């Protein structure tokens, strides 16, 4: 096995730094430009972490975001990840800057980890190339922008490296692996973690040629212990997602309708030639490029022919590279009938299988470089060049839909054949038929040829990354004012226009009559205003059904409140403000006043409910009266009850979901749900205070037992592990 020598460190560091610099492209070039996405990052990560910080600062676990959609759980929300490693940055700097720093650091360390990984198999420059190809594959590169995905390759690679380390003692390896698994789980979306598990389990098995040795066993035991230790969180997530509006939602299938389009999408980014309003990551997600695919296939053939000599590498490429990549392709585009997969994006399998497919690419380059294979290497390179050139010739007849693609694709496909032509001109054609030419001591151009072909292929592969980088980084817009996936101006991270948020009273509730993707309801938290529309992975199905049945909402990217207005119900939900995209005559006829507006740019109008409802109210003599003596705390609300003459009913405008704990004067009580699903608590004249706290989904005893047992087992394993036994014996 090759080892990473310290004299190679500067080159690896250079590659890692260049990746970080590239990830900060517009951050460096344009003023007030930061690296964040105006959708998931702003609407979810910044909002969720803001609430999480408040809870943690108060010494509580961040269990619920009261400001989102009548209370949305936080721990089960895979887009917040309050305990992620990358969440630390948000404690020290503003959120847009924190995200920019995270991308820079994660890009840097991921590149380094990947280089060390590939260096086990290849020469330094091939290792660096494979690292770049893995990191800048559209899937991982696109999602490096997102808080809940960006650390996936980093932890995955670290785990593989620790697993296979020969230098670490048993105790160190177990401890590091356990910590890495836990950090992986809490730093990356659970869906991605679960996809990575087969790769993590299979890596050593296949690398060791199907041998299950003590390393494999100990690694598997640690994985199981880590899974057990995170079982409470997994259980909570499972309970929340099973009742979420996301179940059965299938946005990932049918994007590329037939196998033809699916195949072409591998060769050229779909956004350049496909209709159906492809946008977002679907415009680039499936792109691998012809150059990469042919290099991978060529590498696979090289490994296949040498499989007896290097079975482990062959198995890694085949079982962890090609097989899962092909399966994921089939399921992604044709799996809408499979309920287990139809709400998930199966191309995420490629994030991990790519690493092993790149082993094939690296093997091909190694084959080309190997001076002992001079003749075969040259032949392979010429064949590869011709294979790249043929599609260019056949495209007009075979794929007329690719007429208008970028010229860059054509140039990179023609580059190798062009270089072959140059090579043939500059060297003697006769020399190509001389085999072997290994004993000459004279330095001729031919002695460099093996690497020349490999370098040409490498250049081609790097050039094939450019369309991905161009689209994802938004290079062609040449500014930061048009927000794109990777960069935006700092003000896009906040509720805009600001003066509209300032016009709303803190701890009151608003609803925007606008698609939730704009994030007004979510970003209202920065002004301590509670939002009503739904946009979260764990938005509750039951609540949506209630609102839908009452005809209060329009379904669009989850849902938002919309006319025709039912004013009594809006007041019952505590909705004091409505943010509309323009004038609303129905509201104006019913005495809703415009308290703020933005006529210049957006046309937004903020209407105030004449009832000025509070999120807390109580029943008095048959009428509902607002109650303002309350304080919101992390995970709950404390209310000072009014003086009443007889038994009364308190209503709190939070969704009465499982997990709330209700206390009246310190004693636990039962609650009820209103017609609209809100919390209702009866109270007596002598009651003084009500405390409502969200404790999360109740975790069953057996889950807690598994957690404690796993921690105990891990500690025991470390204590009684082989190192200690050897030292005891001596």
């Amino acid at each position, binding site marked *: 096995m090759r080892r990473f020598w310290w004299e190679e460190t500067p*080159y690896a560091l250079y590659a890692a730094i260049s990746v970080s610099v590239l990830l900060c492209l517009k951050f460096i070039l344009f003023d007030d430009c930061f690296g964040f996405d105006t959708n998931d990052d702003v609407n979810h990560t910044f909002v969720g972490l803001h609430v999480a910080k408040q809870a943690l600062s108060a010494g509580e676990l961040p269990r619920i975001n009261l400001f989102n959609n009548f209370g949305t759980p936080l721990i089960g929300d895979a887009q917040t990840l309050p305990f992620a490693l990358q969440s630390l940055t948000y404690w020290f700097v503003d959120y847009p800057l924190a995200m920019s720093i995270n991308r820079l650091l994660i890009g840097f360390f991921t590149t380094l980890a990947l280089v060390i990984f590939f260096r086990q198999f290849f020469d330094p420059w091939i290792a660096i190339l494979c690292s770049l190809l893995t990191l800048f594959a559209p899937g991982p590169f696109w999602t490096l922008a997102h808080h809940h995905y960006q650390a996936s390759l980093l932890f995955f690679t670290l785990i593989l490296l620790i697993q296979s380390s020969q230098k670490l003692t048993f105790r160190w390896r177990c401890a590091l692996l356990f910590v890495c698994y836990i950090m992986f789980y809490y730093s990356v979306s659970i869906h991605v973690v679960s996809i990575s598990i087969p790769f993590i389990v299979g890596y050593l098995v296949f690398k060791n040629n199907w041998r299950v040795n003590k390393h494999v066993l100990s690694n598997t035991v640690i994985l199981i212990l880590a899974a057990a230790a995170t079982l409470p969180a997994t259980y909570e997530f499972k309970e929340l997602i099973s009742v979420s509006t996301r179940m059965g939602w299938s946005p990932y299938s049918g994007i590329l309708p037939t196998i033809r*389009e699916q195949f072409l999408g591998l060769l050229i980014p779909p*956004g350049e030639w496909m209709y159906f*309003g492809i946008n977002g990551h679907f415009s680039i997600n499936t792109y691998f490029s012809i150059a990469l695919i042919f290099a991978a296939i060529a590498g696979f053939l090289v490994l296949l022919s040498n499989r007896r000599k290097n079975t482990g590498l062959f198995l890694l490429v085949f079982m962890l590279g090609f097989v899962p990549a092909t399966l994921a392709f089939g399921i992604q585009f044709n799996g809408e009938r499979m309920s287990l997969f139809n709400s998930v994006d199966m191309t995420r399998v490629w994030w991990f299988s790519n690493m092993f497919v790149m082993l094939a690419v690296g093997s091909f380059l190694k084959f080309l470089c190997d001076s002992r294979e001079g003749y075969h290497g040259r032949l392979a390179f010429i064949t590869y060049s011709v294979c790249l050139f043929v599609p260019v010739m056949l495209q007009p007849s075979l794929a007329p839909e690719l007429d208008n693609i970028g010229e860059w694709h054509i140039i990179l496909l023609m580059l190798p054949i062009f270089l072959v032509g140059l090579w043939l001109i500059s060297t003697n054609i006769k020399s190509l038929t001389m085999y072997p030419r290994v004993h000459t001591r004279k330095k001729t151009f031919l002695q460099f040829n093996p690497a020349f072909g490999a370098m040409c292929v490498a*250049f081609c592969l790097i050039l094939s990354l450019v369309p991905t980088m161009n689209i994802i980084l938004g290079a062609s817009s040449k500014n930061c004012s048009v927000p794109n996936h990777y960069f935006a101006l700092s003000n896009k991270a906040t509720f805009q226009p600001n003066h509209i948020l300032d016009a709303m009273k803190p701890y009151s509730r608003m609803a925007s009559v606008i698609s939730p993707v704009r994030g007004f309801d979510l970003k209202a938290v920065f002004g301590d205003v509670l939002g009503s529309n739904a946009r979260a992975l764990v938005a509750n199905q039951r609540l949506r059904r209630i609102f839908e049945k009452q005809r209060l909402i329009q379904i669009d990217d989850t849902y938002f409140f919309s006319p025709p207005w039912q004013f009594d119900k809006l007041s019952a939900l505590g909705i004091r403000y409505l943010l509309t995209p323009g004038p609303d005559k129905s509201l104006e006829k019913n005495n809703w006043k415009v308290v703020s507006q933005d006529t210049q740019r957006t046309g937004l109008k903020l209407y105030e409910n004449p009832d000025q409802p509070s999120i807390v109210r109580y029943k008095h003599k048959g009428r509902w009266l607002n109650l303002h003596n309350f304080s919101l705390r992390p995970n709950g609300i404390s209310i000072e009850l009014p003086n009443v003459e007889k038994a009364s009913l308190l209503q709190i405008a939070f969704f009465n979901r499982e997990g709330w704990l209700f206390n009246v004067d310190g004693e636990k009580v039962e609650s009820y749900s209103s017609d609209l699903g809100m919390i209702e608590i009866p109270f007596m004249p002598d009651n003084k205070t009500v405390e409502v706290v969200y404790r999360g989904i109740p975790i069953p005893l057996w889950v807690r037992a598994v957690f404690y047992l796993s921690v105990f087992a891990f500690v025991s394993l470390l204590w009684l592990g082989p190192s200690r036994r050897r030292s005891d014996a001596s």
Partner: protein
Amino acid sequence: MQASQTKLTIIFLAFWTAVVGLLFVHTSGIVHVPLLTFPQARGNLFFLQEYEKTNILGIGEKVIAIPHGIPFVHPKRVKKFQKENIFVGASRQEAKRMVDAGTQDLDEVLYRLNIEYKSVAFLRIGKDIYGVPAIDQESGNPFPIDGWNQYDEKLIGASVEEARRYMDERNWTSN
């Protein structure tokens, strides 16, 4: 590290640096690199109606009539369109005429005049001028016009001038 490996690594990193540098230069606007312009396909596929066991769809400037049971065919695959009896017209009504006639080759078809006025494209059949909502180049979709459905043709005059007057009098505006 062997000298040859060092050399190869440096060459490779130099190339990579050049690519990164190119992206910086292009993004900054200092130099416009035409090769780094990757055209993005524009326009959504709109389902307009079902007619005589045919789905009438709009995409960009075209209206296509696809017989039931035929899977998606990319609009640029002209030969495939002919093979599958998929007709391409310039308006919804023209597509229906093609379906009625059972052929794309009608005696009279709408010809684009390359004139757009008030978000309406002018087309000609014989001596008559028809209008169809023009395509917004930004989105690739027809401009939304009050009271005028996307892809619908309207007879707007016997000459271009008359058509312009018709547009002025009706005050057609897009949203």
